[in-house]
């Protein structure tokens, strides 16, 4: 099992969800985050004082999947999330040792 962390633009969430569910992904968890990266923030003036907005609104979508789905899920997510402009974000892949479905107690691949 692997965990994918897709960090990307908030308004892409629906598209990504559509793309992945059509591949058979049946669960995902979304967190609102603020990102700092190559996409620079913007300078604003509030009551005459300049300030720098460094952290931009992003979402993190976490998906735990079987190893054999990895490739196509990444590909589909890249296609759905891409705008081609700086700030599109990243996908990180992590190893997962186990999963448990709380409701049933099932573990491993069956749990996701």
């Amino acid at each position: 099992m692997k965990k994918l962390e897709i960090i990307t633009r908030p308004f892409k969430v629906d598209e990504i969800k559509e793309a992945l569910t059509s591949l058979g992904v049946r669960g995902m968890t979304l967190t609102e985050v603020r990102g700092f990266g190559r996409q620079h923030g913007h300078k604003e003036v509030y009551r005459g004082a300049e300030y720098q907005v460094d952290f931009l609104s992003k979402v993190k979508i976490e998906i735990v999947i079987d190893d054999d789905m990895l490739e196509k899920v990444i590909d589909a997510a890249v296609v759905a999330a891409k705008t081609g402009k700086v700030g599109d974000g990243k996908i990180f892949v992590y190893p997962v040792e186990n999963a448990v479905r709380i409701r049933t107690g099932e573990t491993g691949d069956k749990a996701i």
Partner: protein
Amino acid sequence: MEQLLELSYALDTFYFLLSGMLVMWMAAGFTMLEAGMVRSKNTVEILTKNIALYSIACIMYMIVGYNIMYGEGGSVIPGISFFVGGDNSVADVVAGGDGAPYYSDISDFFFQVVFVATAMSIISGAVAERMKLWAFLLFAVILTGVLYPVHGYWTWGGGFLDELGYADYAGSGIVHMAGAAAALAGVIILAPRKGKYGPDGKINAIPGANMPLATLGTFILWMGWFGFNGGSELKISDVESANAVAMVFANTNLAAASGMVFALITSQIMFGKADLSMGLNGALAGLVAITAEPSLPSMPLACIIGALGGIIVIFSIIGLDKLKIDDPVGAISVHGVVGVWGLMAVLFSNPDATLFGQLAGIGVIFAWMFGTGMAVWLIIKAIMGIRIDEEKEYQGMDMSECGMEAYPEFVGTKGSR
């Protein structure tokens, strides 16, 4: 006797000033209502727009609007002059008799100026979340300085619609439907917000960000409407006028109450839920509906007029959505469609009103405001553009137009959807 006339003058002036102040307070009501009904990323912009449009309305109407509306002119072409004149002399007042002034002219100006702002506020909500701030404010300059005063002249100013017997007590048509007509023109030119209508004709819900604000705004409007309608009797200092004002208060309140209750019931029946936003629109619809004639209906009739307003508004909102006319706060339905209903309902209680007169008024005011509004929107579009670009629309207008967020500490990413 002279002192009595002076005192009576003072009372009517005071009544006028307080009524005007209540209508000024309606500006806060529109602001809160609209700020509650848009998404958080567009909230600062709508706040700015509302307080600025009220300010602009006051200034423009002082410079030229009032003089157009209440100046000397033909039955169609109004006169033109600038700046409001002086007030009544004591001598004129205590002369007494039919022609003598019985309230301060400046208090009249104050009462009138807040009405213009109301008409303009209506537009603000309908074009929310996508129109450039300064384009909107430019439109406000023209509507409040010229467009509204012209049809105001035709009706309350004594022009040809007045002569045709058009009856519109406090302005269901002159203020509300007029604002809605200009709003409709703007909405058509602007096109819907991104994401409001799916490619397959699907209508997406875009919930407002702050329901307590929207509710507060409705209560403020409800309160302010006592000034709007109550002050439109124009006099309170004798028994008949006082009775009439009392009737106006009671009927205005009951129409709003009925509009609220029936919109809520209708939403429960149609959607299975008591949709608060529809209930709020229903209360306002009741208010708009009774505005054309709040002094003559009996209380039960006022309830019926309001209730129908509350029901009509729901169907109108759904209908406009089907036509892809994207009005985030329902302003066109509340003020326009229900405004027409209110004008027709005058026929049930006012024996002097005629079907012809009412239809003529509706037709002329709508045509004028929709036509000239459309022309002005198009000119502004040609000069400076009226719609913000797509990227900014996604990010929200607050950062791009005003450089600040409404709730900088609260909203995470959902705000930037």
